[in-house]
């Protein structure tokens, strides 16, 4: 590293690739908007009718159509739609008459908090499990991680959530029930707490309200644990296969022949190289959790994006549904691309 400074020629292909990624990102983003646009405009539901209600006069309807640009040709409407979205205008919720972007940004931190905690737990459990399974393939530990993982893939997340509530909240009373806080604390959340981030664990800690922190933790741990189980299933499986691959490499044999302790060979040398593809896997599972939170949030009355979308679905508030879809889609696409970029940055072989 120190002896030879990186020649400038290596930077240029990297920049070119980043440029390419940005273009791909934009094209994918346009594709996403094309689909949501198709859903909202081409499938025959009259948006004017749903905004004005059935008692509007024909003149009012016509005026609204003109204002919303619905009399323009489709491609022009699409252009307006893309322009509005880029400026952060996701439309107005029919139910609350508030801008969708404002509502979504209020809800987003709750989902982010849930998905982040779940990913952290999933990594902390999944990576070691995958590594140990790979070092002893076919062992009891390997078989049981595989089975536990497959079970995670096979359970409906909403059912798992209900069962978790039934057992840990209803029977054992170990955790808090649905919602982010007990009802008693909910008031102090609104009036006593400075909301820095919208993420309740961080906010309570920053306000030095450790009693509230503990209460919030007892509420988040179950939904986060359930999501973590699902991401653990994926992460441990991928870690195992990457690790198996790495342990067959010659540098591992060399390290072993040199007499290096096996623990160091596995947890330092091999794991370092496994971390590279694993970054992609973790980013993907994070993106998946943002989406998977939809059903979990409805079970746990978690005031995040997922329950926002499903609540809007129930009252056919399409601008809110599609606005939420666009935001989740952007986060999802962004994480996908980020994992791709990180991979290229960390692994020199991928830069070729």
């Amino acid at each position, binding site marked *: 590293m120190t002896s030879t400074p990186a020649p400038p020629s290596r930077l240029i292909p990297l920049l070119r690739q980043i440029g390419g990624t940005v273009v*791909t990102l934009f*094209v*994918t983003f346009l*594709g*996403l908007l094309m*689909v*949501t646009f198709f*859903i*909202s405009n081409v*499938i025959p*539901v009259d948006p004017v009718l749903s905004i004005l209600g059935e008692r509007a006069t024909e003149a009012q309807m016509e005026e609204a159509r003109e204002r919303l640009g619905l009399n323009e040709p489709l491609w022009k409407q699409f252009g307006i739609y893309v322009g509005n979205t880029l400026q952060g205008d996701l439309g107005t919720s029919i139910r609350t008459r508030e801008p969708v972007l404002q509502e979504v940004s209020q809800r987003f931190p709750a989902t982010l908090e849930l998905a982040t905690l779940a990913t952290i737990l999933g990594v902390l459990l999944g990576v070691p499990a995958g590594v140990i399974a790979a070092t002893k393939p076919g062992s009891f530990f390997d078989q049981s991680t595989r*089975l536990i993982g*497959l*079970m995670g*893939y*096979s*359970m*409906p*997340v*909403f*059912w798992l959530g*209900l*069962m978790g*509530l*039934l057992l840990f909240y*209803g029977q054992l009373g170990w955790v808090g029930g649905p919602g982010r806080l007990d009802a008693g604390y909910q008031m102090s959340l609104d009036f006593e707490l400075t909301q820095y981030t919208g993420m309740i664990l961080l906010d309570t800690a920053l306000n030095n309200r450790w009693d509230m922190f503990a209460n919030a933790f007892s509420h988040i741990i179950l939904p986060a644990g359930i999501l973590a189980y699902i991401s653990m299933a994926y992460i441990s499986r991928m870690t195992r296969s990457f690790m198996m691959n790495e342990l067959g490499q010659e540098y591992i044999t060399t390290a072993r022949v040199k007499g290096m302790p096996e623990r160091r060979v596995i947890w330092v040398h091999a794991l370092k190289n496994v971390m590279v593809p694993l970054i992609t896997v973790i980013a993907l599972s994070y*993106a998946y959790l*943002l*989406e*998977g939170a*939809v*059903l979990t949030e*409805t*079970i746990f009355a978690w005031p995040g994006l997922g329950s926002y*979308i*499903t609540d809007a*679905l*129930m009252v*056919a508030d*399409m601008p809110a*549904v*599609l606005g*939420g*879809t666009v935001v*989740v*889609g952007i986060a*999802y*696409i962004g994480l*996908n691309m980020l994992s791709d970029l990180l991979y290229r940055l960390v692994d020199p072989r991928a830069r070729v």
Partner: protein
Amino acid sequence: MSTLTTWLRDPNPASRMQSRLGQSYLSWLRLRRNPLAMIGLLITAALLFVAIFAPVLAPHDPITQELGRRLLPPGTPGNILGTDDFGRDILSRILYGSRITLYIVLLVILTAPVVGLIIGTVAGYFGGWVDTILMRITDIFLAFPKLILALALVAVLGPGMENAVLAIALTSWPPYARVSRAETLTVRNSDYIAAVKLQGAGPIRIIWGHVIPMCLPSVIIRVTLDMAGVILTAAGLGFLGLGVQPPLPEWGLMISAGRKFLFEQWWVATMPGLAIFIVSLGFNLLGDGLRDVLDPKSASK
């Protein structure tokens, strides 16, 4: 019996059929050594059996309400798994529900992989700008959050089983396109394709007759592995009230009905969830085993 096995294991098969059956027999032997895969196969077979014979097996009608017998706990004589809030027998509803699940799975299998196969093989075979455009579209769809897109689609199409199937199919074809394109790229420059081309076969005939069969094993493995995902998504849509509508005994819908009295009458939500879990686990175990058997890459390890 022994003559049959020797015929199957004959290293010099006399006909194409014998060679094919022999290969399948060897795969079967390998699959049989994997106990988890056999459990998966058993569960899948049981699902088929239950779906076909639901009217014979079910002790009660799944739809008829009997309000005098509502919310009976499991173990009640005549209602082994208990009854729901309308006094309907939960076991009978689960047994009939297997038909709905199987129906949804079959409909998705008949659409998404076929679309993916066609797109993937065409992209891989023709290459060039056709490949670029088709794969860009595939990548765009792959980058979408599937469940949310399915939700939004069903929201505008209106709730219902067919629309749920459509939404699932529309969001699940891209992986098949990826897989079949990759397989197509490996065979498209091979000698046997060149030979067929020299005989004057057109692209459609080559893709249909000579490329698609080569892609099938990988696609079938993916289908088996995806089946659990399809069941879970369908159940999720049903749970949100966007899929199959009441009073049909769809498992996700049954869980959502039991949610109201989860803490008092736990069995109403628990039992159908167990059914989903067992069936998905069966497909996952089978898919996992099939991949080990049919995928030459992992078999050689």
